[in-house]
């Protein structure tokens, strides 16, 4: 759906702009989560990381409450959630970022590291879904 996608995207981009111009920080969710959970020793003050992470479910809750239902179709298999979560957690730390940090914040400043990172995770994401479908593991 192009229009909600664009509107939601603009909101995400403005949020990232507030983090940069207000606090001088990258709105990279994986890094901020690691910082908020004290898994990472570097990064913004804990109060900034914690407040941003707290805001994510708060914002989603407000939309569901005041704008309308938010569709969330999760895989039924807990195994997929567990394996996916483990690999995402490890990979985003090793690769220094995820869709927000590399994809939104990095691409928008034409960072070479982020362009390469985004190409890698998009490529492996496409490949993973194709392989899962071929193996009958699609959902």
């Amino acid at each position: 759906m192009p229009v909600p996608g664009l509107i939601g995207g603009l909101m995400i981009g403005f949020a990232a702009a507030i983090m940069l111009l207000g606090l001088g920080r990258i709105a990279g969710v994986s890094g901020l989560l690691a910082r908020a959970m004290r898994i990472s020793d570097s990064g913004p003050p804990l109060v900034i990381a914690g407040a941003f992470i707290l805001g994510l479910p708060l914002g989603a809750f407000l939309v569901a409450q005041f704008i309308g239902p938010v569709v969330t179709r999760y895989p039924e298999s807990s195994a997929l959630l567990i394996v996916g979560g483990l690999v995402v957690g490890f990979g985003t730390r090793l690769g220094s970022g995820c869709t927000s940090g590399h994809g939104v914040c990095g691409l928008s400043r034409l960072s070479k590291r982020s362009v390469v990172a985004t190409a890698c995770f998009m490529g492996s994401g496409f490949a993973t879904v194709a392989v899962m479908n071929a193996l009958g593991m699609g959902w």
Partner: protein
Amino acid sequence: MTRSFIIALIAGTLFGAGLAVSGMADPTRVRGFLDLGGQWDPTLAFVMAGAIFPMAVAWLIQRRIEAPMAASQFAVPATGKLDRPLITGSILFGIGWGIAGLCPGPAIAGLALSPSAALIFVVAMIVGMTVHRSFNRSTA
């Protein structure tokens, strides 16, 4: 301190609301983008385009100002040097993203929408991050 907390909370809340509005809180829709061989769902590309535009403007402003509004200096990562961890880590991240249809932002926002399923993913993700840290410490 309080001012930083409020600014970060506003940014996080707007970010989480944007994820919910855009459809990106729905793992099936994200997976639809990654499924090039199926009924391809282009929404994620529109979200990225919408997000990159204001952020690109923000970077142009950032170059022209000395310091952010509510902090003493900018603390932004270097952009140049490519290394193996960046590439290996990003490939791994994409694999997990494809498996579950979730990346960190939508998963954490999902704690308010689909709490039980999102919590399984988020806990596993935190465990994965912790494993990376111990792995890093043992090789450093």
